């Protein structure tokens, strides 16, 4: 097994606030191999974004209590000094964000913003950086890239802006690209274009990609491995096929049963089965398994003991006290039956 590109060990990110400590990320561990595509699924408050903002160093020790290790190509990013971290950020690990409308500076030309990224990490002249920027715009499929490079973000459409963001993120050939809800703010046909682009580019640039989203459809189509997060912890992790055809966690089941699907056979509108209750507070996390107040399969042990993510070395792990046999049974009875 090759050395993992990214190895996160028991990462915790806690924010002290007036109301209490917000345990945004509460002990997550996972690895990302080079060239892999990881999907991180969760709703708001699951901690999915916070974890990766911390990997990027955009959440620092000044803002939160950070524990654990983030090993990137063997080096721990948590203890890395700020200056060194800045050489990693943008060059080895890049990130793109949800809203391309507000993520680009409105006052500077798009080409200049990309060139700025290049010149921050490479000693090249302004002209060379500009040429690289134009080339990147071409590679992300923006027509007439030299004209476009001299335009301002507001002159771009939503889809083009996201392409420009991707161009900026890939301009230094990073080993890892983190995409935080990259298509949520886009129209669905544009979403398809962008995801298609990411698939193509990750091959071309030989980069590992992490897609953070709440959309189970997106990760089904574009990710090799998937993590499901809830209340700051990973509750299930596995291959694509594991999650959709053999899920082992009640929260995953709940998600799969509650989303409307295009391919569902409609006989007088089949009912969705929602997850009861409300998302938990990250300050007063429920005792034991954080999902227990909402779990239809809860029993005594769930309320007192926090389950571990097991099997620890396996590819398909879940954080639940139910036995493996029960998990498989319930999945086939309740979730698969739907389709």
């Amino acid at each position, binding site marked *: 097994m090759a050395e993992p590109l990214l190895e996160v060990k028991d990462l915790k990110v806690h924010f002290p606030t007036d109301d209490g400590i917000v345990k945004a990320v509460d002990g997550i561990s996972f690895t990302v191999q080079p060239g892999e595509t990881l999907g991180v699924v969760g709703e708001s408050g699951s901690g999915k974004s916070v974890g990766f903002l911390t990997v990027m160093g955009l959440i620092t020790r000044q803002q939160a209590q950070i524990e654990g290790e983030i090993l990137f190509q063997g080096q721990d990013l948590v203890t890395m000094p700020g200056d060194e971290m800045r050489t*990693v950020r*943008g060059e080895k690990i890049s990130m793109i964000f949800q809203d391309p409308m507000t993520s680009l500076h409105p006052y500077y030309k798009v080409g200049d913003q990309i060139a700025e990224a290049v010149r921050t990490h490479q000693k090249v002249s302004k002209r060379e950086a500009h040429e690289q920027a134009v080339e990147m715009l071409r590679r992300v499929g923006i027509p007439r890239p030299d004209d476009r490079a001299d335009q301002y973000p507001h002159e771009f459409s939503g889809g083009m802006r996201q392409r420009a963001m991707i161009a900026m993120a890939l301009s230094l050939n990073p080993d890892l690209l983190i995409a935080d809800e990259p298509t949520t703010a886009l129209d669905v046909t544009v979403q398809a274009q962008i995801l298609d682009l990411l698939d193509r580019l990750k091959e071309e640039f030989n980069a590992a990609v992490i897609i953070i989203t709440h959309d189970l459809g997106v990760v089904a189509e574009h990710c090799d491995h998937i993590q499901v997060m809830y209340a700051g912890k990973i509750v299930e992790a596995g291959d694509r096929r594991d999650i959709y055809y053999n899920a082992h966690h009640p929260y995953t089941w709940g998600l799969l049963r509650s989303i409307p699907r295009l391919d569902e056979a409609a006989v007088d509108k089949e009912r969705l089965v929602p997850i009861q209750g409300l998302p938990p507070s990250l300050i007063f996390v429920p005792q034991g398994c954080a999902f227990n107040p909402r779990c239809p399969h809860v029993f005594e042990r769930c309320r007192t003991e926090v389950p571990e993510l097991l099997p620890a070395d396996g590819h398909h792990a879940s954080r639940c006290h139910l036995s493996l046999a029960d998990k498989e049974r319930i999945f086939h009875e309740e979730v698969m039956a739907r389709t």
Partner: protein
Amino acid sequence: MGRYLIRRTLFMILVLFIVSLITFIIFVKLPAADPARRAVGRATSPENVEAARHAFGLDRPLYVQYARFAKGLVPWPGLFLNEDVYFSYANFVPVKEEIFGRLPVTLALAIGAATLWLLIGIPIGIISAVRRRSIWDRGAMIFALIGVSAPVFWLAYLFLYIFWFKLEWAPPSGIPIGTSVMEAVLQGRFILPWMVLSLTFAAFYARMVRGNLIETMGEDYIRTARAKGLSEKRVIYRHGLRAALTPVVTMFGLDLAGLLGGAFITETVFNLPGVGQYAVNAIFNQDFPSVMGVTIFGAFFIALANLLVDVAYAFLDPRVRYT
């Protein structure tokens, strides 16, 4: 842009008309001594008073009188504040001469104070925003509160008392006759007026810069800039400040233009012979042409500054396009 400029210029003219009209009406309505009588003195014949009245045009109907003043609105040499109409009732000097004669003093005061308040206010605002809730921030905001609340005349007398009277660091106020403005500046006669005038503005600008910068630093494009690996300094200055300062530039244009009409209180307290002092005297003397002249002068510059800062905004913010 051309269409926009034409439209704005038309509005500017409209504004000047309205301002002059309102000023005129105020004077018509105010109970005042007959300027003709005041001009010629007490013991004269009614014929002399009549002659004076005729010279001042006071025997014509009101709308004609206004029209005469309105001619002076047109910013064209020969017409603007023309001497026939804009002639002081009090000291028989053309208003235009007085204003332009006093302008250098006001300019010196305004530009000096403006430079000072930018140099003080903006850095304080930046530090405050970047080190929120630190002792610097709290100190800065207290400074801002004092600066904004303290009346200019109080500050002026306070400073005069401390720095001139007690410590004898500053020269006495006023500009002796015969001293040019340049000499006065070099003699340090403007230092206290600059400090006083700039304090209020510096406080205001510090608060504004702080607020704008805090807001800007919370925007998504700042997060992108950091994600690119830029140094924090570059993020703050090239990305944050650049956006945060745009409204400040607008305000600055307007504030500076406003001062061209005269910093009334500061000039009076420090006895600086600027446009402001002239205006104050004219008001007390009920010297209508002078008041009208200064008002129009000031209004013209403010309206012009308004137009210029709006145009400047289009250059600063590429999203803004005027049609």
